């Protein structure tokens, strides 16, 4: 069986958030919807101070609470491990958002075009001559397609007002044999993606002699994201340098 997983090496992560921008562009998500989110933390009192970073994608849990609560089968887990959302089925009840202990679900509060960084006028006439009026101008056509054996509308974001979206591990890229956009861009290779059931895969090799831990292991969610180095977050951490608006 294939089981897609991600390793996050906190001994390597520089907290640069390139993964966040790569995700936003690849998936055409709207502003504030950071499917991949990198926490920057400060801890302690001067001069006994420490800093740490924590990238947090969807954990693609084996025992995903979001899947259980979805009343319409929009949220589902694929055989290859991906936990996905069918944008055409979602009714926007936000049960998944409440059920998830990781805060990875993002609601589309407004028409997608409005959330596409509309401080810039993407409908500018001269720009339309170049882009054909697409919003965002870097709109990725892969996201309109149907994926998996189920042939469902699961890729990308910003599809419609009133639906929930979250990290798909870039299902549309994975099906082409590409890494998710976040792992692809990571400047220090802190994000390693692959089939954890395949002992020859990069992620299996990476985890082999390391001692990974998982976020909220005690919640019984059986996440498929493995952290290396650092330490699980605690209540003493103070988050710094938040983006302009977080949902």
């Amino acid at each position, binding site marked *: 069986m*294939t089981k897609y997983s991600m390793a996050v090496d906190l*001994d390597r992560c520089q907290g640069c*958030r390139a993964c966040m921008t790569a995700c936003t562009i690849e998936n055409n998500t709207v502003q504030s919807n950071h499917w991949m989110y990198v926490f920057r933390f400060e801890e302690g*009192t001067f001069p006994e101070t420490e800093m740490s970073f924590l990238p947090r994608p969807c954990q693609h849990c084996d025992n995903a609470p979001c899947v259980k609560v979805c009343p319409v089968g929009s949220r589902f887990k694929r055989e290859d491990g991906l936990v996905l959302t069918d944008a055409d089925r979602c009714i926007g009840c936000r049960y998944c958002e409440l059920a998830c202990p990781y805060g990875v679900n993002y609601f589309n509060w407004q028409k997608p075009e409005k959330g596409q960084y509309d401080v810039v006028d993407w409908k500018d006439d001269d720009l339309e001559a*170049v882009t054909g009026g697409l919003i965002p101008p870097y709109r990725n056509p892969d996201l309109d397609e149907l994926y998996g054996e189920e042939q469902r509308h699961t890729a990308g974001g910003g599809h419609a007002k009133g639906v929930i979206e979250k990290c798909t591990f870039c299902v549309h890229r994975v099906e082409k*044999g590409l890494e998710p956009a976040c792992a692809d861009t990571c400047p220090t290779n802190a994000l390693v993606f692959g089939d954890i059931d395949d002992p020859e895969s990069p992620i299996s090799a990476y985890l082999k002699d390391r001692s990974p831990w998982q976020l909220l292991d005690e919640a019984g969610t059986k996440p498929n994201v493995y952290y290396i180095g*650092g330490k699980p977050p605690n209540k003493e951490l103070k988050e710094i340098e938040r983006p302009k608006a977080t949902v």
Partner: protein
Amino acid sequence: MLKVNRRKFVRGSTTVAGSAIVADKFLFGSFSGVTAAQGPEVAGPVEDFVATTCWIGKQDCGMIARRIDGRVVKFEGNPTNPRNVGTLCPKGQAQIQAVYDPNRVKWPLVRTNEKGVTGEWRRASWDEALDMVADTVSEVRERDPKKVLWQKGRSKAKDFYDDAFVKSTGASKLGHGAFCSDAGYRALEYTLGTHAVLHPDFRYCNYMLSWGWNITNAGGNKFCWLTWPRHMVEARDRGMKITHLDPRLRSAGPFADTWLPIRPASDLAMALALCHELIALDYLDRPYLSTYTNAPFLVKPDGMVAKVTIGEGEEAEEVGLVWDEEAGEAVPFGETDNPALEGEFELDGEMVKPGFQVFKEHVEENTPEWAAELTGLSAAEISKVAREFGENAQIGSTIVVDGVEVPYRPVGIMAYHMAQQEMGFQTARAMTMVPMLVGAVGAAGGQLSDFTWKIHKNYAKFEKFTVNDPPYDFVLNGSKYFPINTGFPGMVAKVMLDPERYGVEELPEVAILHMVNPLNSFPSQKEYLDSYGKFKFVAVISPWLSETADYFADVVLPAATIEKYEGPISATDQYVDAVTLRIPPMEPLFESRGEIDIYMDLCERLGVLFGDDGYLSVVNKELKLVDTEFALPLDQMPEVRDIFDRWSKSQGIEEGIAFFEDPDNGTFVKGPVSPTKMYGYVAETPFGGALHRLYGDSLLDAQNQMKEKGAEEIYWQDYTALPTWRSPTMDSSPSEYEFYLISYHQIEHKQSRTSFVPMLAELAPGSYLDMNPESAKRLGIDDGDEITVESQNAITGETRSLVTKAVYCEAIRPDTVAMPHHFGMWTHPQNKGQGASANEIYFTGEGYMTNTADQSFHVKVKVTKGSEA
């Protein structure tokens, strides 16, 4: 035009799954989920890829642009480029929003209102705008080409801009270096002969002093952010330890094994104390000091080196004398294998000492206890750093690298912007002496600076300074103020405001501003506000309406961003040699054009494009096309693509530029850099033939000349043979200005070309002041409060202020406050509400620059709650 590679495919419509493509990043043994397109293919969007090079940052990382029907939908890192090996930083990713930004300057603009206020513009044709620039420049140029000032912030094709345009027009050139780390460059050109700033050999380094290195947010001298931090994490995987010297911990994030929160501007004291301790603990590489430095040169009581002339006629050269202990006499350097480093000897009736002896006595009082008071660190901490550095240096050891035995000293300093302080030149010199003492310069694992040991022309120039009487040119070259002179736009602004004060008679009349925004990006905004209005004509070449253009441009010529041919661009990561080009992934947007096109058109109008010494002729020289079959004809304007096609072929690339356009290539990898190029000890001529200047008697000579010419102490006080501590000028500000203000770079931004990119502005939205909560609470300031930050110039008494918000930060010294420096812009809708830039309250000029005419980024400030409005 663009080659479509094997990844090209025709996607089905939304109802047909895309063809399964085996891409070069295929990760998995097997994967499920994709079904190949079945049945008749439905015509759909065409996907293709083109290799190019990032534009938005400094490092010029290799990229692959993914295009759908010719429209770029994403930039990704090019795996073949050694610098970024397939990765990109947040800016590299987000720049796609910048490319499509309709707030770019779409077409040439001509000003219709007065200068010094927000501009009003009319649309002009390229012909009209270029004619206007050419007419004005021609008129001034005929009188004196030096009165045409070409100023750059960043130049991404030096051969075409700095060299061909400037040389063919005879214009004066001004760069950004004095705001960067050029005091450090001057210090290393002086001390080692190389043109760069300290960085370690990450491949072998085991112990690194990260000295003011903004590891997680910036980069270094040769690279921006991607390459060195990647090398750094790999070195940490190997076990390298990092001691981080910085008033803020944020710069190192989790990577500091030890954090020493040093007081701003006390780095010189720290470096001198480290030298003191290394000498006291006898961590000394005497063979290196005796053979490759001037440490054995005999210094006379007047501070000058005793020299003798060897050879005759044209071959005559002055050589320092050293003491041959066996013979009991002074001999020319090189005539004894074992010159004295210590002691005192009689020479021609005078008592003389080796330079090392003078240095040892010089740092005698610079004990850890002495430095503790200045740096805010403990003597024990300082001493521990010296011990760790000395122990880890493994003096005397060697290692075999690619079959070559190389001295092995796995210790180094990574420091770049440490030079941006009042004593930056001497601080960088003193910091270089730390690895010099243990023999780590040019050793495997040790201290590197440039990528090669090619000696910079300044090394010889700095052997003997000539200080002239006025009148001076407006850059003050050869003046009694700056015998070493980086070329400082801050001083040029001051000179323009008061030429008489500086003995200057001729000022520049027109300015061509290339990718530069002095009004926002340079500290001490007021000087630029006051002086740029004095240009009778300003042409700005920029993709966006910079703040400087808004206030002072007569004509704005819209440059393309990434959509142009540009280069050649080095792609080395210092261990592998490679080169690349910037390739337009789409046509220039709107009416923008690549700068090379703009300059060729301008040169044609100025009559300097063709013929010997014309623009094309200089391009031939700089690209090394002269006397090759690929040389550009000097009588016709080429296509820019054709220029790079010729250059590519001259590099032995048969396909020409198509090689660089090909997404499977894009980078011309020449192979590993040999140890004989990388390590100074084993270079064909060790250290490129430079004798490292531990002792700098020509600096002392410069001081003497400056005094003779009547220069004030503030100009000559740091021209000393050895780095000498003094209190920084800002420390004499009144005590109410209790904080040191420093500013810093955020990884989301780059200078003044990103804070309006929406995705980056979302991540790093605006200005704030980091304050230690202890200090803030004492002043009644809560986290998030609006505050006023007021700076004071300790020399003139002038005060400046800005309003921002306080952010509590435990990881900063209580006597230090810090601001990100990317904001304070106003011409783009995204800039609204982003807040102020520290550049508004820094000062430039005397007391706030180095002795080499480089800007200091330090000032004392007071912080009060609320806005004074």
